[in-house]
Every structure is written in structure tokens, then in C-alpha cells.
């Protein structure tokens, strides 16, 4: 039996391995600073959680909170910091549906695919979503505005069918309502653009 995410080498405060800062498109200086801060924040969690064995999942979760998704870069970083083979980190990331390996759109639309929602027409909602956004489940629109995901039952079956928009639960969603949600999100984007 392997023991992972345990006994990782002590991370040095403020020191991010250079390899992790170089990859990707050429960034603005401010962005680079931001990325560095994100890694520093992750470091703090790694320090806390490597004190106990078996905490890889929670570290990944925190990393996803910080970065929005788990890029190969971030996975490799966590593997190095926790002295876990990167294959094992990737194995865990790909096993659990909670972990995302692609960047998400500005609005993530999670459609509950639990039985209660299915029976009450979640499938129809999914088709409307796919149709009006022209993407499949798990994909993001080219303008990075919408991502459609499916989620397993969130346990609010009394309100089926359910759509979760950026973490906010919409219950008893009708086909009309989901179209309205999309329209609203689109408008929200336009307003935000005008404010720029």
C-alpha cells in the first residue's frame, strides 16, 4: 500500500520552482505576479495538509479553488511538493468527477443528472442548453462565456429539475427559464463589457 501526500519535502517560503513559472504564453508582469501568489497560497495549504497522511484529495480541491481548474502544470507542482509520483496525482485527478482539467467559462451551468431531475425533464433542459450554446456537456463556448457540466445529485430533489449557475441553485427549472438564464448571463456579460 502506498502512502501519498505525506512526508512531502518542506516547501521553502516564497520559492516557486522556476519550471512552473515559465510555461504557457508570455504573460504580462502583473499576471505573472498573480500566478506566483496563487502558488504561494497553494503552498500554505500543502504545508497544512501534508502533516497528516492521505490528504491528496483536499490539496487538489484547494488547488482547484485557487486556480479554477487543475492544469498539468499545477498537478506536476503538487506532485513535486508532496513527493507523490505525478502519475498518481493525475490518476486521482482523472478518477474523480469533481476535478476539472480544462479552464471553465465565465458562467458554469451545472445540470443535475440525478434520477429525480431526469424524471422531471432534465434531459430536455440539457438539449436546450446544447442547442442554444452549440456545445456539448463538459465543453466551453469559444468566447469562454459558458461551460455546460453535469453534476451528480446535489440532494435537493424536492426542487427538481435543478440547474446550478456559478454555484447558485435554480430549482423547478422550466425550459423557458433556462433560456432566460442564458439570456441574463449574456446580458450580464454585455453590461460588464460596457463598464470596462
Amino acid at each position, binding site marked *: 500500500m502506498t502512502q501519498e501526500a505525506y512526508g512531502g519535502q518542506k516547501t521553502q517560503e516564497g520559492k516557486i520552482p522556476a519550471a512552473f513559472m515559465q510555461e504557457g504564453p508570455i504573460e504580462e508582469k502583473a499576471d505573472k505576479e498573480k500566478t506566483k501568489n496563487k502558488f504561494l497560497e497553494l503552498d500554505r495549504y500543502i504545508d497544512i495538509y501534508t502533516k497528516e497522511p492521505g490528504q491528496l*484529495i483536499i490539496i487538489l480541491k484547494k488547488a482547484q479553488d485557487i486556480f479554477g481548474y487543475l492544469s498539468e502544470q499545477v498537478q506536476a507542482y503538487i506532485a513535486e511538493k508532496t513527493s507523490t509520483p505525478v502519475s498518481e496525482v493525475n490518476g486521482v485527478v482523472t*478518477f474523480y*468527477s469533481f476535478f476539472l482539467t480544462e479552464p471553465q467559462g465565465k458562467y458554469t451551468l451545472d445540470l443535475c443528472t440525478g*434520477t*429525480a431531475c431526469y424524471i422531471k425533464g432534465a434531459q430536455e433542459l440539457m438539449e436546450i442548453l446544447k442547442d442554444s450554446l452549440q456545445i456539448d456537456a463538459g465543453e466551453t463556448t469559444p468566447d469562454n462565456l459558458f461551460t455546460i457540466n453535469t*453534476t*451528480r445529485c446535489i*440532494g435537493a430533489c424536492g426542487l427538481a429539475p435543478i440547474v446550478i449557475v456559478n454555484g447558485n441553485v435554480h*430549482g423547478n427549472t422550466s425550459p423557458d427559464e433556462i433560456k432566460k438564464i442564458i439570456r441574463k448571463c449574456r446580458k450580464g456579460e454585455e453590461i460588464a463589457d460596457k463598464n470596462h
Partner: protein
Amino acid sequence: MQIKTIDGLNIVKEKYLPLVKQRLGHSNGIGISQVMVCSGTSCISGESQDVRRELERELERRNLQNSVQVIKTGCFGFCQHGPIVMIHPGEHFYCRVKPQDVKKLVETHLVNSQVVEELQYQNKSEKVNNIEDIHFFKAQKRIVLQNCGVIDPEEIGEYIARDGYYALADIILNKKPAEIIDRIKKSGLRGRGGAGFPTGRKWEMAAMQEANPKYILCNADEGDPGAFMDRSILEGDPHSILEAMTVAGYCIGAAQGYIYIRAEYPVAVERLEIAIDQAREYGLLGKNLFDADFDFDIDLRFGAGAFVCGEETALLHSVMGQRGEPHPRPPYPAQEGLWGKPTLISNVETYANVPVILRRGWEWYSGQGSATSKGSKVFSLAGKINNTGLIEVPMGTSLRTIIFDIGGGIANGKNFKAVQTGGPSGGCIPAKYLDLPIDYESLKEIGSMMGSGGMIVMDEDNCMVDIARFYVEFTQDESCGRCTPCRVGTKRLLEILKRITEGKGEMEDLELLEELAYDIRDASLCGLGQTAPNPVISTLRYFRGEYVAHIRDKICPAGVCKALLDYTIDEAKCAACGLCVKACAAGAISGAKGEPYRIDPDKCIRCAACVAKCPKDAISKGIRKEAANIAERGVQPGAGSREERAAL
């Protein structure tokens, strides 16, 4: 404050008892009103927290904050009618309370002592004021859920006021572990996670192991879609789980417990974190509990969305931060679990029963329920039913009572078709078994299982072949891939079912389905694979007629399977605008401007593109014409007996 003695508990209890007593219907003249706002996930989604904040603001505005207390509480179970607000004294029950109703509620009820009629629950035509008079609650017996909706789950004192932690104190101060294990055994408590293994025997097995350290693990990975019992218990009464786990730790000799909880339940996680912190602060978790030589602490571990992790060996791997793949048993987790050490794994609801048994005695508990299944069972009712929500009934209650009495029958006046219990591992139960008393054994006999307690009701508009396909798609997706029968078998099973729903099935497929289903059941490594074919086996058994209709007659009697539907244009409505012709990729629509269009069923690929484009809503889908004739001849959904099929 650290509680070390029974007297310590008494001090806390005295402080909180008057408030709690009032909520239980005692009019003890404490001179204040209490407004209970349901703060379960379902009501929170319906803005109950906005209602709560608005209430607090409004009370402050009227300077009533000293005479009226607003309290967050756990799930009442009446989720269909949420957000729920209950006002004490008087147990006034209000449903569907929105933030904009708050002003009126405060003005009318709390200031003028009058009932707000429009927020009352309406049973057909009569308004119901009191919770006791609502049929949904009347037919229930709340044992495990006794604190849900009564106490504030974020206040340990209220749990103590309900005699919480007294059992733990008594056991640590006065009892031997063997004595307690014996009581649990005698109570007849069985695992509520699905399989129904006797809990006492599990404890005994773990206690017998000599290896150290040992671990207590609580399975709160409620992955079964459509089930939310565990979530509601954790949100409404988290301390009962902590107390039970500590008792279990004392009995088997463990010092560390873990609760493995889904990431999809943020509210439950928050409540548990608060509860654990409070218990530590009161000295009810930590070192030397009640000054005895016994340490126990509990930490949370998070699942990340994998159904298979509800299986105990897979869960062990996940708690250790690995891929949640199961391994063969034996060794059982009670022998070799976390980090190779003895580990006691039970489900949330199982633990929730433990304090009740210890408080009220095993004699009382074993008198509840049916001959082989003791106590009560919490079910989450969902699907096409009037009152979706959380209910608790004694074991041995009939499905009819649950669905038609408590659940209020089928929504929109439709007919009942089937009820699915046990989630993706269970089966679909047809109408003829509605009067069967349900317990572990009876459900197994009719091809379903208790499972964790999800109950999805289906009406005549649900296609059973499609439901089977839905479940197999779920298990196929969630299959971890470790063993071949499950990984490949469910894939093939799904392919056949898809073929049938698309109208491309052959009659031989039915035998193939059955053979494959039994092979997967017999050869899979863990519970997921072994039970994955259950939805197929049970629908084949009870709704064979529907499969036959799909395969031979190419119709879907319920009108669900798209490929088997016909699209027709209502000539009276058609404006002959020609938009549908442009939308049709298959060139199946013909006609000319000025006269109604027609769809050629042989060319139509049933994509429904024309339906979306039609400005007059003139295109409708329906089951094929032959369907009417066949229906007349007697093949009804679910009527799958041999004679009826022969008559065709």
C-alpha cells in the same frame, strides 16, 4: 467550557431546555416567541436564508429582537413546500415563505397574534394551521429525525437539552464496551447503507481485532441520485453522529474517527465543522473524555464525486487520498481497513440510530419495525409525487402508505406506474406490490433493495426501458474500471438498451440482456457491479411488455423515446410559412407556400429541429399510429404477462 461529569451536562441542559421545550409544544410561559427557519439545502435553495435575514432585520426595526428569537433549524422534510417557517408557541406552520412575505408575517402573526392565511399549508381546500394536522407528518414516526426541525444544529447546547451526550457520558463513566455491543446486537439494528448487515456484529468483529490503532469511519458519501437522507441528518442533527461515533470508538477501542463526506454537500460540511469545533470546545471530543482514559477525535475527509466510493473498500482508498477503487473482501475493513488497521465503517443513518437505542433501550427499539428489520427507515421521496421530501416510517410500512398517504399521491392526476427504490442498485417496483410491507427481505424478494433509502416515483409518462437505460448509463459512467464484468459488461448492456430505445432492437436482445445482466451480477468484484443490472432485471421482469413494444412494434408506449415518436403537423394551426422546411436537414417536409406542410415519417430522423422553429407550435410529437390499436388490444405499460403477449 469542558464538560467532565453528568452534572456538567445538566448545567447546559437547564440553560437550553425552556426554549427547546416550547418547540415541543409546552406552553411554559417563557414570554418569547421562536421563529424556526428551515435551513436545509432544499429550503436554502429557495432563499430561506434571505427570509431569515429579513426576519432579523424586521424584528430589529420593530424593536422585537428580545421577545422573538429567529432560529436556524434542520430539514422538516416537507421540501416540496419550502421554504418552511414554523412559529412557537403554537406550532404554526407556514410554507413557501418568501422574503417579501416577512413584513406581513411579523406584523400579522408576531405583533397582532393573528394567523397569516395565505402562507398556510393548503390541503385541497382547507387551510391547515398546525403541523400535527398535516397528513404528510401525521403518518410518520420520527425516531432518527426527532431533532431535525426542532433544534438549532449549530448549537451544541440544544442537542444536550434533547438529552444528547448523556448516553456517551453514562457509557464512559459506568459501562463496559462489551455491554454496549451486546445492547446494539440485541436491538436488532442493521446497516442503513443498503446491505443491512447487523451493526452489533460489525462492532463485535472490530472490537475483537488485536491490531492497533483502530479507526471509526462514517460513510456520508450519499452518491445514490435522488437520495438525501444522510445529508438531512447531518444538516439537522450533526451531534448525534458525533456522539454515536464516539460511543463506537469507546466500544471497539479506537481513538480516531473520520467522516467521509461528499463535496456536493457544502451545507452539511459546514454544519459538521461547526459541530466538531463545539464538541472539542466542550471537551466532548479530544483527550480524556469525562476524565476517563479515553481519547477520541473526529476529522472530515472529502469525496470528490465518485459513486463507487460508497462501497466500503473503495471508500477506504478514497479516505487515504487515492483513487477510489474497491478491493476484494476478505479481509473485511473491520479486520484490515485504513492503513491496514481495523476500521469500523457505517452509514450516517446507522450511526444516527445508536444514541436513540442507548437512550430509549434496546427493548423498546427491537419492538419497532418488522420481524427481521427493526426500527424505522428514513426515505427521501422524489419524482412524480405531490409531496416530495424527507420522511421516516417504521420498517414494514407499505409502499401505498408512503406514496399515497404521506406522499399525497401522484402529481398532476396521472397514474402510478412504478417506484424505484435503492437507486441505481435497486429495482423498479410495479403497482401490484404497493401493499407489500417493506423491509430488507421483502424488497430483495421482489428484485429491488432497501439501498440507502431513495425512493423515486414514476408515472405513466415515464418509459421503463428508458429508465433502465438511464440507470445503466449512470453505473456505466461510474464504473471504476477495475474488474471486467462491470467495466465491459455495463457498456454492452447500455449498447443493447440504447439500441432498443432507438427502435433498432431485435427480439433476441431480450435474452441477451438477461444473460448479460446475470453474468455481471455474479461476476463483478464489488457492490456497484453486482447490483448494476438490477434496474434492467426488474424492468424486464415487470415491464416486459414495454420492451416488446419498443422492439417488435417500434413504439414507445409512454411517448418518451425520441426515435420512436412521430412528428406531425397540425394542418389547422400551420401557417404554411415554410420555416420548418428550411430547418429540416433530412428533407422530410413537403408542401408549398399557402397550403399546409406534411412530414414524411419514413424520411424523418426525429431530430425535432422543426418543432423548435415553428412559430405557431403546429408540430406535435406523439406515439405512432399503430400504438392506439395495440393499446386497444391490451398491451398496457407494465402488462407484460405471457398470455397478453400471446394474444397479440
